[in-house]
């Protein structure tokens, strides 16, 4: 373990030396032949009324490392991304993240076709799935410090895995895109790379457009079919083997006067998750449904300043007496959470955020306070919708 850590440190140092050389060679300007490099620095000060090590959501078998995070000062996931067109047909992107455990993790590493034609785009490697609205968004573009409870409980924050994605953009006047993905089946809610390393598949459709010059929208429907083989939850681990099927409906509405978001803008975002898992949990036959949603609104009331409000709700079937005392025991509790945040950006590259959660996802209410910075340096980030 110690040896592994040293190895990752050495790798990181090498990466940084290489990075500084690359940046020097490119004179900071975007050089067509060098990859665009962007580094996200992210850090948090957190204060909780409960011990985050005891965090559970009764009724939900959680993935590893899902919870409110560490207390006190901590480096959040800082990310390093390198991306470029490989040639006229391929684009490549690589994102390494420094995790809370001080190890380096490959978050995304993929290639993608560029201008293949007929509206088709193929992506291969490790990447965030295109399901839902928030799933493919990197941490620096989140509007809150943490993910909505539905993402935390049912996708282990975000679904990422090794696989292949094919998208087709319809040649319509409005936006209409279909996607299909096949994955290895390691990323939660899958586990254990079932079916010879072809353990999960997804399907999604997104559509959207402009209602008028000031208002735009995006909506989607996604399906995830994941096979779990000895998927572990908690410590000591509880084991689940079976199928996890998830449906996500998402909707985003954005408003900016005359379509100019610089002064003020508003964003309303809703996602609904409905999941059914069946198989064996700790050796007992298990078949139960869970659902949940979040709704959030972000308002930039003057340039640089934004406020946000979010409500999260989850609900799980009572799986029966056989599961009393396990993570699936709902204890008669319906998890919910309220969050408010205020953030300030000097430029689009820097952001400071204050967030408060009244978290009733566990049986005991928790007050969570976060003070966070998210800064990006290097190449100009993309303004995705």
């Amino acid at each position, binding site marked *: 373990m110690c040896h592994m850590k040293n190895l990752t440190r050495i790798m990181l140092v090498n990466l940084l030396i290489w990075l500084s050389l690359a940046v020097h060679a490119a*004179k*900071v*300007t*975007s050089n067509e032949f060098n990859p665009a490099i962007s580094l996200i620095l992210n850090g948090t000060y957190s204060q909780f009324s409960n011990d985050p090590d005891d965090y559970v959501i009764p009724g939900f078998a959680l993935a590893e490392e899902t919870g409110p995070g560490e207390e006190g000062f901590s480096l959040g996931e800082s990310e390093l991304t390198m991306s470029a*067109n490989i040639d*006229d047909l391929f*684009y490549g992107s690589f994102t390494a993240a420094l995790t809370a455990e001080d190890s380096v993790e490959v978050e995304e590493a993929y290639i*993608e*076709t*560029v*201008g*293949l*034609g*007929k*509206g*088709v*785009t193929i992506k291969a490697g490790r990447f965030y799935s295109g399901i839902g609205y928030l799933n493919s968004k990197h941490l620096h573009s989140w509007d809150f410090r943490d993910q909505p409870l539905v993402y935390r409980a049912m996708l282990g924050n975000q679904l990422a895995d090794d696989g292949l994605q094919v*998208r087709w*953009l*319809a*040649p*319509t*006047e*409005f*936006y*209409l*895109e279909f996607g299909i993905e096949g994955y290895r089946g390691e990323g939660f809610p899958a586990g254990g790379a079932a079916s010879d390393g072809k353990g999960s598949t997804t399907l999604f459709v*997104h*559509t*959207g*457009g*402009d209602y008028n*010059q000031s208002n*735009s*929208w*995006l909506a989607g429907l996604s399906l995830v079919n994941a096979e779990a083989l000895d998927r572990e939850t908690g410590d000591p681990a509880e084991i689940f083997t079976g199928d996890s099927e998830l449906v996500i409906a998402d909707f985003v509405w*954005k408003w900016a006067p*005359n*379509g*100019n*978001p*610089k*002064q003020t803008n508003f964003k309303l975002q809703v996602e609904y998750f409905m999941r059914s898992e069946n198989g064996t949990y700790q050796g007992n036959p298990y078949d139960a449904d869970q659902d949940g949603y979040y709704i959030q609104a972000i308002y930039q009331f003057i*340039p*640089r300043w934004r406020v946000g409000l979010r409500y999260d709700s989850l609900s799980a079937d009572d799986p029966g007496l056989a599961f009393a005392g396990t993570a699936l025991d709902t204890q008669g509790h319906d998890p919910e959470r309220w969050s408010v945040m205020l953030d300030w950006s*000097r*430029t*689009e*590259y820097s952001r400071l955020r204050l967030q408060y959660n009244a978290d009733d996802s566990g049986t005991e209410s928790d007050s969570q306070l976060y003070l966070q910075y998210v800064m990006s*340096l290097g190449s*100009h*980030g*993309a*303004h*995705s*919708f």
Partner: protein
Amino acid sequence: MKWIMFIALLLVSGYSYAQQQINVFACEPEWASLVQELAGDKANIYTATTAFQDPHHIEARPSLIAKVRRADLIVCTGSGLEVGWLPLLLRQSANPKVQPGQAGYFLAGDQVVRLEIPEKVDRSMGDVHAEGNPHVHLDPNRIAVIAEALSKRLVQLDPINKIFYEQRRKDFLAKWKTAIVKWQQQARLLEGVSIAVNHNSWVYLFEWLGIQQVAVLESRPGIPVSASYLAQLKHRLADVPVKMVIYAAYQNDRAAIWLGKEMNIPVVQLPYTVDGADNVVDLFSLFDVTIERLLRALEA
């Protein structure tokens, strides 16, 4: 079943429509207007932004992705102006015709010499562009150069209509050159005049007309104006004969109005691009109105 037929109909109509005209995606209204001058009804033009939007700060909205998917030609400024959204649109569109290097990819800024190319770029300097100041459309001489190149590109994409495009180019450039002479005569009084600006969008206009830019209200490009910096600026400008302060239709007017009041000089909103004022319907009226408003402020 009905909705399947409806979608099929949409798809078919999309394809057949595309064959009659060149589908043009113009990032900004000035280029939509220029394509209109050069291609007339041979082009079906979609304009991605309006005069009331800041072309630096656009999101890759779903509607824009759908339009780039169907485009035969994109006409944008380049020089980093659309860096936050155009590359994303191009990647998501999966459209081979408009990728960099293809005939369907036209950047106006690349056709002309740009001003203010920095020796060194650092984000602490604000939103500066390594490729130079991108607001090239405010110099009519540069527009003429861009028009030549754009017209050639139209011929390349649609060779059957070569004669048509060449005739339109000749007609446009003849009218344009006459207009330039007229504007230069009208604007003689503006030569040497000192002006404060909200954002550094006017260097090409000022270079053409010999106007002196003495101050920028943003302390750094793209960073909102701060009260303390404005107070400093007022102090610094006390001994400078500033005749007016100008800002673009899409920009916040508060800082300009404050400085105008404090210094007792006219505050002028300029259209900046086509549709930026009621009577600005094309590139000709853009310069007509711009010069008229500057002259009116000078007389005030």
